[in-house]
């Protein structure tokens, strides 16, 4: 009898707490978010001509379709030289399905990945900055992020790519550098986190500043 009552208490308890903590609380927070932070609560969307093109918090690819397909039938793309390129992504910048790369420290497969990433980075940028060597390539440019959609690149990475952007878009270097500075998210209060250049915002600003020819 006593046990039955205790089991009953347990069942009522979880139901009551589910209503309060599992329905009332998140729904109220959703209401607050939608009223107080409508843009942020919905994903910091960026709209161009009224259409959602992405989120300022999520990286996306800036590539050209080569028209070729790989063995699995997926289109082979190459980086679009008109745009700053985000960090490599394990998930092809998927914003619907994120996963870690799980590339271990002593992974033989990992070595090939890093080697290829470094080679294609040098291949793309060296044309516009002949003095570029592997020792000058910052590590964020050739490693995948944790989320697959890291919106930022390091400033060192952006400054290397600036040579290419300036040449392709016919912009003076100091103008590109200025745009980089404008779209760098600094440390919070000058202390917390690491500075990063927001690639999507920077590219949209570039398109406004000097529409690609």
């Amino acid at each position, binding site marked *: 009898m006593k046990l039955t009552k205790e089991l009953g*208490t347990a069942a009522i308890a979880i139901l009551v707490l589910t209503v309060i903590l599992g329905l009332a609380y998140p729904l109220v927070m959703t209401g607050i978010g939608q009223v107080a932070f409508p843009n942020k609560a919905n994903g*910091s969307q960026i709209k161009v001509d009224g259409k959602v093109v992405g989120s300022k918090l999520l990286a996306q690819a800036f590539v050209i379709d080569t028209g070729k397909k790989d063995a699995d039938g997926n289109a082979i793309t190459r980086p679009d030289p008109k745009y700053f390129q985000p960090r490599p992504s394990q998930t092809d910048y998927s914003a619907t399905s994120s996963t870690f790369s799980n590339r271990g*420290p002593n992974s033989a497969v990992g070595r090939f990945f890093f080697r290829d990433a470094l080679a294609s980075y040098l291949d793309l940028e060296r044309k516009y900055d002949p003095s570029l060597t592997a020792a000058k390539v910052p590590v964020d440019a050739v490693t995948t992020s944790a989320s697959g959609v890291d919106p930022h690149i390091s400033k060192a990475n952006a400054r290397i790519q600036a040579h290419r952007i300036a040449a392709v878009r016919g912009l003076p270097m100091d103008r590109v550098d200025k745009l980089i500075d404008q779209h760098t998210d600094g440390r919070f209060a000058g202390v917390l986190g690491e500075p990063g250049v927001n690639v999507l915002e920077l590219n949209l600003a570039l398109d406004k500043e000097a529409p690609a020819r």
Partner: protein
Amino acid sequence: MVQGFVQIAIFCALVVAVVPFLGSYMARVFSGDRTFLDPVVGPLERGTYRLLRIDPTRGQDWKAYARGVIFFSLAGWLLLFLILRTQTLHPWNPSDFHSGTWDLSFNTTSSFVTNTNWQYYAGETTLSYFSQMAGLAVQNFVSAATGIAVAIALIRGIIARRSTNPVLGNFWQDLIRACFYVLLPISIIGAIVLMSQGVIQTLGGPIADIARGPVASQEVIKELGTNGGGIFNTNSAYPFENPTGLSNLFEMFLILCIPASLTYTYGRMVGSRRQGWALFAAMSVLFIVSVVVVYIAEQHGTPAQHAAGVHTGILDGSTGGNLEGKEQRFGIANSALWTAVTTVTSCGAVNAAFDSLTGIGGMIPFVDLGYGESVFGGVGTGLYTMLLYVLLAVFIGGLMVGRTPEFLGKKVEAREIKLVSLGVLVTPLAVLLATFLATATKYGKPSIFASGPQGFSEQLYAYMSQANNNGSAFAGYTGYYQPTPGNIGAHGITFADLLGGVTMLGARFLPIVLVLAVAGGLATKRVAPAGLGTLRTDTPTFVGLLGGTVVLIGALTFFPAILLGPVVQGLTDRLF
């Protein structure tokens, strides 16, 4: 690196600053004193008691208290399993996700009821918003509250004057008060802070191929309750869960604030703040060693990167280091700090990929789990586990000086030491047994992703994490194959799902029952005044003895296993 250490110092200072405030507030909440929230929360609390038809002032003995914990967890388990199995009937399921396989649901349910939040599933491609909110998030709250309740019951047992009355308190009252006075208010404020930083909170479905969800409300309790199960698969590395340097600091703070403050609560309740600070000191020393080691290790690259010719040093405008599996906005310092924070506590949320850590950096999560949740640990679980180690240290100290050990005036006798030894050893036993079963048979193999020592690391870590109710992962390890989003056509790895689930349940509830048995035993003991020969438990010497005991037991248990995985990789440039 100076900038990084400054950030780490700021974080530690914040935690130290909040400990007395939150600690004494919780002491008031669980002593039944008035708090400033009474006018708001009081009616809700009393209404809940009426619905439960319980008298909160009626004390329970340790067996009744333990039954409360078990029955409540059982009810929660059944409800969550039901929710996860009926996804097609849910409201707020914009992407029309089906339920996963039954073995995955078993693992996930056990995972959340035990405060583990081990995730074989990927949130944004498998779970409805209803499952997240009404299923998982509820367990985030109540499993944390259960941990706090058990810790408080142990404290009450320690301070009880010799008495035959049931003095451990009332589980239902402790559960409700932990939820309504501690977890919910902080969550409401915290969710607003996170939303101001860009964490999303919406019931709308995907837009422009961007998955969304009610993230902020869940993110905050996931950290605060040291749960760790993210809505997104890449957890707090995903920008929608953790968008800025400030949100990152705040989330780490949420993880550590309750486990750290509970030491102060303990000091207040036993009537000597020094006792609380002594525990805090022992925990802090081990924690800081972890942070420093993992930071320095990650600032170096990996053998694979060096072999590929990647420059991993610091450049002007780049932090350098092993940025594989890390986010630019956190850099090395904040990823390293988070890694230590989430593994010493039983949180398990991550903002960087553990599987991509360097060998020595990756050793730290193993070492932290080897402490068995005693270094801050989960909310509540950390304090009660550390108190078991305190009893053990008192016993060892007593043997050294040749006196009957006593703790806060109570004799520690054979019954206590038997229960304590069991309590301390259940979790390591579960780890080693489960890892043995998975490694020695062919059934563990399908779960392993990496080759060489990293593969063994993944497997060992999977069971270490699940047994310690942590939930972080060397995430190559898998228990579930999902060909397309929505679970259709997916299949689970039944062995990994079931073994993990059983490990989590056993390593959570056996220690809880043992802890409550210790509390019940201590409550009935006569209090003797401290004499000259009494080993004081609030001195630096004792802090050293306590820390040494924790390290010694962890090392004796896990050193050989850890050597086989991360240490091997830390010592060689060979690629596998």
